[in-house]
């Protein structure tokens, strides 16, 4: 459905996309995850033929994408990162306008319009002007305008930025529903939880490059780090700590006087062994956590940076 190869995009001296490759198959929810400035928006804009690029090729629906490829454009829905609606038009008028750019037939459009409103939960706000809408509702309107015409391929560029949790869940659920309805989705975000929950395949981007790609399980398996153990414990002796550090499969163990953190190697579980040592040595411990690795851990390990901020 999407085939991008060796895309290079420069803004002056800055290389925003550096030999970027991407393949998205029909029916996927594909996540582009990366910190601010990693090139997610640039990648999407290049795919849509909005931006010039110096090298590489983009094909959508099996055909090279150009600005005049209206047949392709008709099958695509885009929700831009920046809210783009007419301030002087009401919710209904806005959706009708953008839907009308794709669907000339009035009757069909009315049905689609109602569906989009239902879908985004904007029913109570049909006659509202955008400036009267809260941030979350405005985002929902932005989404409704992008998807009302039932596109086969949808690009969503950080649709949930600055949205309250309730609206966010509503939006995520909506995206799943679009996907169930047959749409292929490209979703960008720098919220890893969101991407993890939603996407069937994920690409992690940094500095205009893909650093890792796969399902979330693939990605987590890719790194050395696995489960993260946290144990609240006081007065851990040096000998005990050494014994724990010696447990096979623990890659990174630290103690700061009240919390013991240990990282297991990928796909290995060692909580039992750690607790065994403590029990055997009759050391009392408080709360115990065991967390599976997150995409942040993946990112951290690959790039040496934190994904968050």
């Amino acid at each position, binding site marked *: 459905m999407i085939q991008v190869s060796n895309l290079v995009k420069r*803004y002056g001296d800055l290389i925003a996309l550096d030999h970027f490759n991407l393949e998205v198959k029909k029916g996927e929810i594909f996540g582009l995850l990366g910190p601010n400035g990693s090139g997610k928006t640039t990648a999407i*804009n290049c795919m*849509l*033929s*909005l*931006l*010039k690029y110096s090298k590489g090729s983009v094909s959508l629906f099996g055909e090279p994408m150009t*600005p*005049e490829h*209206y*047949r392709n*454009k*008709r099958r*695509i829905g*885009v929700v*831009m990162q*920046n*809210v*783009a*609606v*007419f301030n*002087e*038009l009401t919710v209904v*008028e806005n959706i*009708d*306008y*953008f839907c*009308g*750019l*794709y669907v*000339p037939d009035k009757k069909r459009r009315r049905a689609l319009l109602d569906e989009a409103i239902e879908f985004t939960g904007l029913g109570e706000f049909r006659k509202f002007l955008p400036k009267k809408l809260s941030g979350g509702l405005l985002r929902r309107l932005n989404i409704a*305008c*992008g998807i009302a015409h039932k596109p086969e391929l949808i690009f969503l560029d950080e649709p949930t930025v600055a949205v309250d949790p309730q609206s966010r869940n509503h939006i995520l659920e909506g995206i799943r529903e679009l996907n169930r309805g047959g749409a292929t989705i490209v979703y960008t975000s720098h919220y890893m939880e969101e991407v993890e929950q939603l996407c069937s395949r994920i690409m992690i981007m940094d500095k205009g490059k893909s650093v890792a790609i796969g399902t979330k399980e693939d990605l987590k398996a890719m790194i050395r780090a696995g489960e993260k153990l946290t144990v609240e414990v006081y007065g851990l002796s040096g000998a005990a700590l050494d014994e724990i550090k010696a447990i096979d499969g623990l890659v990174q163990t630290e103690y700061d006087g009240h919390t013991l953190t240990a990282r297991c190697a990928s796909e290995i579980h060692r909580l039992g062994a750690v607790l065994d040592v403590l029990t055997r040595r009759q050391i009392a411990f408080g709360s115990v956590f065991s967390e599976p690795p997150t995409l942040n851990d993946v990112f951290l390990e690959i790039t040496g940076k934190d994904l968050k901020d």
Partner: protein
Amino acid sequence: MFWNIYSKRVLCGLREKESMFWTWIFPLLLSTMFFFTFTSLDTVGQLRAFPLGVVDDAAYHRDAAFRSALESVSGEDGLFELTAFGDAADADAALVKGEIEGYILAGEPPALIVTGDDINQTIAKGFLDRYLQTRNSVALILASNPGAVNDLPALLQWADYTKEISLAQNPPSNRISYFYALLAMVCLYGGFQGLITVVYLQANLSPLGARRTVAPLGNWGAAVCDLLGGLTVHLTGVIVVVAYIVFVLGTDFGSKLWLVLLTCLAGSLLGVAFGAMIAAMSKFKEQVKIAILITFCMVCSFLSGLMVQGVNYIVAEHAAMISWLNPAARIADSFYCLYYYDTYDRYLLNLGIILAMTVVFFTAASLFLRRQRYESI
């Protein structure tokens, strides 16, 4: 599809506050202000013939020169509506009743009796002073050079005096040219619609533009619909202003109202084209572009005589090129031609210049609009 774009564009335009202010509210306020300024000037204008009394006594009969001078400036087109009274008491009575603004008592020198000192009385006094001054000069000239008697008629140009006074009363030509300049300004404010249209069309100028660029729209079809929508909004405003000036304020635009409207259409197209060019040319923020547009309109309007009467003539005389290339001046001049000239030569020349400028601006705008992929967004 096209109706969708067009109708929503009209809706947007009518709800957009800033351009509404400049194309509707501002001209309506300005024309109302002009109207009241001119109405007060007009009360001055009405003195052209005001009732003045003269005591028809022996002294008046004797002073034939004075009598003929006074009579020559009286009547329909003169300064006074002269009424003769038998004696001073009758004239006094009429003055008290307000039937006359004052009266003249012949003698040596002749005297003016008035009650107030508004502009009419000043005129009467001016006449009397001028008469006395002229008479003294004549006496002096004749005393030193009796041969100069042949030149006397030139010295006694009373008719000119009347004309001069009435000219000072803001003849319709001057007064209406304010409205012409005002209407020209309104036409140029069509630039708002052109500007907004282009900003919302271009992916690199606004998120809305980006969203529309990813839609399956041919570049030109959508642009033309949009511009037509903008033009519709603008012309609605122009028609409201014209109707207000003509029907509510009662300003006479002459008999060729249809041609006036045609001129408005041409002028508006020019404005829209200019706004489109400004928007397409640069990557400034929308607000900056609007500021440029307003400044441009104001400067053109100033040079066409909107703020200070007569600037247009000065520019036309000393910098003819600027005057010919000033869209506001051309539009205003077109209205002027329609009002004053029976032939259409100059009008058509103006119209031609306006249309040529429109074409130039639109062409420039479209050259910038033609690229379809952007270097950056």
